[in-house]
Structures are given as C-alpha cells and as structure tokens.
C-alpha cells in the first residue's frame, strides 16, 4: 500500500498567547481538540519534509584477516529534528520571521526590522492527510520557527518555514493512523 501525505494543515500556539485562559509556554500545551479555534492556523502548506539528524561516533574494528578496519557499530551522541514546510502565502507571523522583527504592532502593523533577539517559540500542531483524505499523522511538538531567506519576484515560488523541534520536551507526541 502506498500512502502519499498530501494535505498538511499546521497550527501554531505561540508562547505568551492566552489560549483557553492559560498562558502558553514550554510546560503548557493547550488541548488542540477543544481549543483549535484559538490557535493560529498557518498558510497553505504545499510540501513537508522531516529531517532527523543524528550525531554519531562510528566504532571501527579490524576485520578478521587483517589489513583494514570496518564499522562495528555506531554510538549515537545527539539528535536533532527539523520540520521543513514549503508555504505559499504570507501572513503576519511569516513576515515577522522574514524581517526579523521583534514584534508587529496590532492593528497599525508597524514593526522594526532586524530587532528579533529571541526565537519565536511555541507549539506546532500538524494534521497530515493522505490522498484519500485519511488522517496519517497528527500531533503537537514544541518548536522554534524560522523563515528562510526569500526573493520576491514575478513568480509563485513557495517560501520555507523551518520548525526546529525541541526534542527534549516531554509533551511532544504524534499519533499515526490508517497505516498498516
């Protein structure tokens, strides 16, 4: 069975926002099922890439017969996980990340470019569906968001939204469904 993940919907609960009466932070994950209308829904995602990188130390030993070494095992030292989304449209959050603004004043829309000092952190909820509209993977992770450099032009190129997953957070959880 071949499953394509085609539909990715992403929401973001930013640190400091109040959702369901609670202030969001690294230890407070709002329940998405009951509060999703208070999360910020991010623009249309056209592609999604999971990048799981491990730093390993390779242990090499002499091969019987001698004369050369071969890998006997790898010893994992650290891991990192990035979700990379290709996104079509721009919203205030993406512009804030692109310009590196510390904040965007609402409703006037004024901001000071290049003043961002702290990463934009929060909870990223992802809901990914197959081509048959079956839910494949869903769940929330703690993440810090960045937007790659982007050149505006007379085209419809996507821009890259990168979510560095804070792997150490104990509330991170995804659920797989409809897979054998």
């Amino acid at each position, binding site marked *: 069975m071949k499953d394509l993940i085609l539909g990715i919907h992403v929401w973001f609960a930013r640190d400091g926002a109040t959702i369901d009466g609670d202030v969001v932070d690294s230890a407070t994950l709002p329940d998405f099922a009951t509060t999703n209308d208070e999360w910020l829904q991010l623009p249309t995602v056209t592609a999604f890439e999971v990048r799981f990188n491990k730093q390993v130390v390779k242990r090499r030993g002499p091969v019987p017969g001698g004369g050369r070494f071969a890998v*006997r095992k790898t010893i994992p030292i650290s891991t990192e996980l990035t979700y990379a989304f290709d996104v079509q449209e721009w919203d205030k959050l993406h512009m804030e990340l692109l310009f590196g603004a510390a904040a965007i004043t609402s409703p006037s829309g004024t901001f000071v470019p290049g003043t961002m000092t702290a990463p934009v952190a929060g909870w990223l909820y992802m809901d990914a569906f197959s081509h048959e509209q079956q839910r494949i993977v869903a769940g929330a992770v703690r993440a810090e968001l960045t937007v790659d450099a982007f050149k505006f032009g007379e085209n419809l190129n996507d821009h890259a939204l990168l979510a560095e997953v804070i792997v150490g957070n104990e509330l991170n959880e995804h659920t797989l469904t409809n897979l054998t």
Partner: protein
Amino acid sequence: MDEVTDSVVRVVWDPDGSQLILVDFGDPMWSEVAVDGGQVVDVAGAIRSPGKTAWPRGNEEHTLTFEIAVETAGIAAAFEHRLDRAIAVPRGQADVLLQFESGSQYRLRRAAAERWPHAQLGRLARESLIIRGGDLVADVGTYDPLITWGDHWFETEEGEIIVSEDNELFTWI
C-alpha cells in the same frame, strides 16, 4: 565524523607487579596507542671542519600516549567515570608492557604517568594518558594481567593511599 577504532595492542602497567591493564585488545580508542622515542645528542663543531659531528649520548626517552573511549550510561556517568579513572592513574614508577596478539611484547622501562587529561562527547568519555619512560626493549616474559584501570585504587609515590575518607572504594592489590 567522529570515530573510534579498536585497539590492536594491550598496554599493561607494571607487568612485574600490579599488572594493571590500561588498554586492552579491542578497547575503542579516540587515538591509538603511540610510542614516540628519542635520545640525547650533542652536536659539536671543530675549527674549520667541513661539517659538525653529532654524538649520541644515550638517555633514551619514550613517550607513550593514547586516548581511550568509554561508553557510559549517561552524561553524568561519563564525567564520574573520568574522575574515577583520574584517581586511579598509577602514581608510582614502573615498567609498561605492550602486548600484541601475535605474541610479541615490548617493554618501556622506568616509566611514570605524567598527565591524564580527559574530556567527553556526550556519554562517551575520552580519557587520555601520557606516560614518560626510558628505553624501549623487547620482552619475552609470560604475563596474565586481570585488573583493569579504574577498578582499583593506588598509592602515591610517597605511599599515601588515594581513597575516599570512608575507605569504601578502596581495594588493596
């Protein structure tokens, strides 16, 4: 890419006494065991000589170095292991034996541990030992070392025993 390689040589401290294994066959090494040597040379010139003359003066000196890797249960455990090994570095003077699986053996005579720097990468400890010694000779003795570095505790050169105050960790050899 970091990598460690299995040792092809065994290093035994004091083969005639405590027979402490510093490096065993197959131990993962950040840096393999190395023995660099040298001797004292005097170079003297004579009046209008076409070239100077070098005089070997003996006093051979060898430096044995290695960096061993130890996989531990966690990052704190790695640090503890490093400190355990630092305490357990033999402080006295002894010979050091190099053994190969082929059966050949080499002996570094009148050696002493000079420095024991250590570090770690995550839970993988990196424990180095720099041993200064005298001359290097072939050896044909039979040895059966059983004790591993860090499992036992040692005296200083003055005979003081390096142990915790409650003596719990102390094992006499």
